[in-house]
């Protein structure tokens, strides 16, 4: 009666929404760590009867990286940050949660229309649809976090969530990837987080806070809207 696959997927969905609603950085990191762990175990569940030893080993490695090493690195980066609470973002927390729910519903709609029959995953239609919906909605949630939050570390976490979603999408799509490539992807992720952490430390040293609104406001060059206003001789803006 307990459908473990459905359980995991709903837990992942819940964690995503929880991440959308949290404002404290440490809780965010914990959420992403747990979500990463779940995501790495998920392929094993989906290929339940035939589990190769290599895939178990790989899942263990991935769990280690996503659940412990990367969050550890992030904790280390924000140790020195003075204010480990997110500023009120452009789109407030409650609305973010509701938008997250809307994303999930949209993703379900998309996945039910897509009718991917041939994919090497699950027996029931619900689980397959749910898997696809979880993958797509996780990507959405990651992008959303990236776009609407101010602190640099939340942006890194958004990137991590997006990568989780892409990995889930990969689980649906491919039964088996050559492990060397999966290791390459994982390694890329690890290095990405390391480098982002280093840059974060630098941001913290230079600006004394990891608030990217400081980055944006400083030089008017290219904020998120992407258009730079360069009039060379006007006096009323802080532009280039």
């Amino acid at each position, binding site marked *: 009666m307990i459908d473990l696959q459905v359980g995991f997927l709903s837990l992942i969905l819940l964690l995503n929404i929880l991440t959308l609603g949290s404002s404290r950085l440490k809780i965010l990191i914990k959420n992403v760590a747990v979500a990463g762990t779940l995501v790495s175990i998920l392929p094993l569940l989906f290929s339940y009867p035939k589990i190769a030893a290599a895939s178990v080993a790989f899942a263990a490695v991935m769990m280690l990286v996503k659940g412990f090493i990367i969050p550890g690195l992030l904790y280390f980066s924000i140790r020195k940050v003075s204010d480990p609470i997110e500023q009120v973002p452009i789109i407030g927390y409650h609305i973010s949660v509701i938008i997250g729910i809307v994303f999930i519903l949209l993703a379900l709609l998309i996945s039910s229309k897509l009718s991917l029959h041939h994919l090497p995953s699950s027996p029931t239609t619900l689980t397959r649809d749910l898997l696809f919906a979880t993958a797509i909605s996780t*990507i959405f949630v990651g992008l959303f976090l990236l776009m609407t939050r101010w602190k640099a570390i939340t942006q890194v976490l958004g990137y991590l969530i997006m990568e989780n979603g892409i990995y889930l999408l990969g689980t649906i799509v*491919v039964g*088996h990837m*050559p492990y060397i490539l999966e290791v390459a992807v994982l390694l890329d992720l690890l290095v990405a987080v390391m480098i982002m952490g280093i*840059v974060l430390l630098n*941001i913290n040293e230079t600006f004394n806070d990891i608030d990217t609104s400081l980055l944006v406001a400083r030089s008017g060059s290219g904020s998120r809207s992407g258009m730079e206003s*360069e009039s060379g001789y006007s006096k009323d803006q802080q532009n280039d």
Partner: protein
Amino acid sequence: MIELLLIVPLLGTFLSILFPLKKVYTLPLWIATLHLFLTIINFIITCNPNLALIAEIFPGQLSGTQIQLVFFFKGYITFDGVSRVIILLTSFLFFSVSLYLYDYFKYSQIKNERSFIFFYLIFFFSMNVVILADHLILFWSAIELSTLVTAPLVLTFKTKKAVEATWRYILLCSIGIAFALIGVFFLVISLNNPSGVIAEHLSILSISNLTFSRLYLVANKLDVVWVKASFILFLIGYGTKMGIAPMHTWLADTYSEAPTPVSALLAGALTNCAYLGIYKSHQILIYANAGEFSSTLLKIYGLLSMFVAAIFILRQKDIKRMLGYSSMENIGIVCVGTAIGGVAQYAALLQVIYHSLIKSSLFLSVGNIILLYKTKENHKIFELTKKMPKSFMLFFIGIIGLIGLPPMGTFFSKMILIFESFLQKDFLTMIFFLIFVIIVGCSLITHLIRISFSKQEIDIGESRDNRESSESKNVGEENFDSRFFVWPQYLLLISSIILTFWIPATLYNLIKH
């Protein structure tokens, strides 16, 4: 052996940890020389028409006269057409920039030379992997790696602006590249074509051997909808890395804040690698009979990039940003050329080659200028002709090349592009193209004249933020016109001029296909 091309930079990376600190700045030069040598040898070997290259696409295809070039990593890397040209180009660029670095280290304020060289060599390695990679996911990993590895390079001078530029660069490019990974997965979905026809080779195609070469062969049997979807994602993903508008926002800042040799390499080499991704996926679509779709998209984005470049280059106060926007213009030209197809594709590749050479040399000359004047602002630089005549000449020739006047090669490539779009009766594209090229050309000339010939500093009142370049130490009026500060640029420009007039037949054949 192709693998040597990959092993050499990796070896260099290890060595950079071990080398004594005083001598470490010579390391890039050694590695780059060795690499160039190997590349030329490989190139010559493979261009011999008797020995065709092997990518060993399907087992049992090796026949007698074929030499196996790829020993390990068989399914993953290849050394075909466009890759050959670009790797030669990249190797050459690295060589020239390493030459420049030899003297640059003395006068710049780079605090930790060893880490700079470490990341520099890994950057080199990653670019080699990108160019040689055949397997889609390997390609993807290598591009992601190259993004990550250039971030510390951009961050060398830890000013506030540099930190901001790095953060934006790394975040935007990583997100874009993540989209490209989704595109790869869409391609895998397209492999399972529900409309039935199973090609003979399609059935063994799965993600473990998802290489570009195989995809070309089976492209017309794939599910077109998913292939188109994957192209869109590739365009967004690799386009972010390349600098196509509207994903270009990181470009100007990053080129501006990075140390000049790094900017030279970013503009010259990394853009080409990202272009490879777009080129190859465009090829897949062409083989899948959806070429018009990708052409349209590429044209739109190419023209958009040129538009953005034209607008922003008009009033730039910062030299390196100006060069960055002109890079964007070039990216737009290349995309439009690729989109038009046929001979224009040939012209686009030529443009890629010429532009890389010219832009790198320009950046290096600008590096000299910045070292001398200690500032990046346009209006503070004056009388270049008097102070640094050699750099001036190089700068002048470089800007001529960017604009597209003869005798520089970019003239010919742009002409061919325009002719081809005439022939295909694509007047709208051509009109916009010409407008933007003219705008950019005029702006560049304006900046050039102001920098070179004006007698004194133009006073525009208080400049709000200080564009003092943090690159140079105060070592007095050194002669920045000497030795390795100018030889690389000479090398690059002369080679571009030579290439304009004499293209080896093999090169021509390669580019044609």
